[in-house]
């Protein structure tokens, strides 16, 4: 390790960790993307420092590829954010935390034993695909008006259950 690279590595690690905190704690879709970009900055700085430590240019070349992939990610992510925003008129990421098909087991609900499920099912088993065209039933306690209403002031999102750590 050359004499002066420790501080650069420390700054890179700190930026990475700050971006990680932002990725977990922010609830705005766009700010989650921005936090990922901050993590990428930390990784770029670390790559450059490693390249300088070893006196070669591989770190700089890798950073250019990271820049390319970050640009692609920003373009795709922002178009996804726009199309998600058009559905709910909200950038809250918690709205999308309960996406699943209605007959699959939920992560926060206890799974019923297999026998009772089989006994209860009268109809023949159908392929588990969401019907095209219709509005999928997202969850039991999830307001369906959320997906159909377009007025942002009428939307009442449920507060997430894991908020009080």
């Amino acid at each position, binding site marked *: *390790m050359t004499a*002066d690279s*420790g*501080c*650069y*590595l*420390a*700054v890179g*690690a*700190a*930026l990475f*960790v*700050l*971006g*990680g*905190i*932002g990725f*977990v*704690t922010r*609830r*705005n879709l*766009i700010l989650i993307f*921005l*936090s990922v*970009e*901050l993590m990428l900055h930390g990784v*770029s*700085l670390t790559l*450059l*420092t490693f390249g*300088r*430590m*070893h*006196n*070669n*240019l*591989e770190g*700089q*070349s890798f*950073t*250019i590829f990271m*820049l*390319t992939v970050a*640009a692609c990610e*920003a373009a*795709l992510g*922002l*178009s996804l954010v*726009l*199309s998600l*925003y*058009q559905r709910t008129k909200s*950038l*809250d*990421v*918690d709205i999308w935390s309960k996406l699943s098909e209605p007959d699959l087991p939920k992560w926060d609900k206890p799974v019923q034993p297999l026998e009772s499920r089989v006994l209860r099912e009268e109809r023949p088993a159908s392929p588990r695909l969401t019907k095209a065209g219709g509005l999928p039933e997202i969850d039991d306690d999830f307001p369906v008006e959320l997906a159909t209403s377009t007025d942002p002031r009428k939307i009442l999102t449920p507060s*997430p259950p*894991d*908020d009080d*750590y």
Partner: protein
Amino acid sequence: MSDSAVQGVLYGSLAAGAIGMWLATSPRTAALRVLGAFLASAGLIAAVAMFSGPGGDVTNKILFWLFAGSALLSGVLMVTSREPVYAALWFALATLGTCGLFMMQAAPFLAAATIIVYAGAIIVTFLFVIMLAQQQGRSFYDYRARTPIMSIVASWLMLAALLWNFQAWQKAPMAAAGPALTAEAATNPFSQPSDVDQFDSLRALGLSLFGDYLYAVEIAGTLLLVAGIGAIAIAPRRAEGTL
């Protein structure tokens, strides 16, 4: 300072930074949150100061602390800011600080490219989307951080582990030429010093990029093309009205 004193100051400043982050992300008064953000960045800067500082003369040191301080402070403020537009602007400032550090690490082309791509293109696009999507002003989900304590504890554990590792590297005996490497790392082609005469010249970087990584450059160009087409395909379009 002795080794144990350095360790003590390092972990003490990390603990102060964690407390500052907790204050900054919690729903308290604005003054407490600003105080927490400053405490967090001061703790991070103090932790960075426990490593061997930048070489060179006084100008070098001043520039390093300016760039590192602005990057860390604006990173903390970006993560904890309640206004998305301000968060994007703080991110632009963090990008500028990071690009200054790139410049000091003998990568002037990358610094310029990162400023152009991030501060020029990505930030503008983010601000554009924020202003498209949040026309009704403040929204409640920007005001409540999700699981702040657990994420701060996990992230700070990771940071402490990384810094402890870097300190162990710093204490390792330095080889006569280049860094001290294990046997496996010494045979790794990415660890071999290249025979470029001018390390920070654009010519050397271009030779590496278009010589060693020519196929990867082509694949990256294809990736950009595919991502552009995909973004156009995903983006919603409406015949009438706003978003």
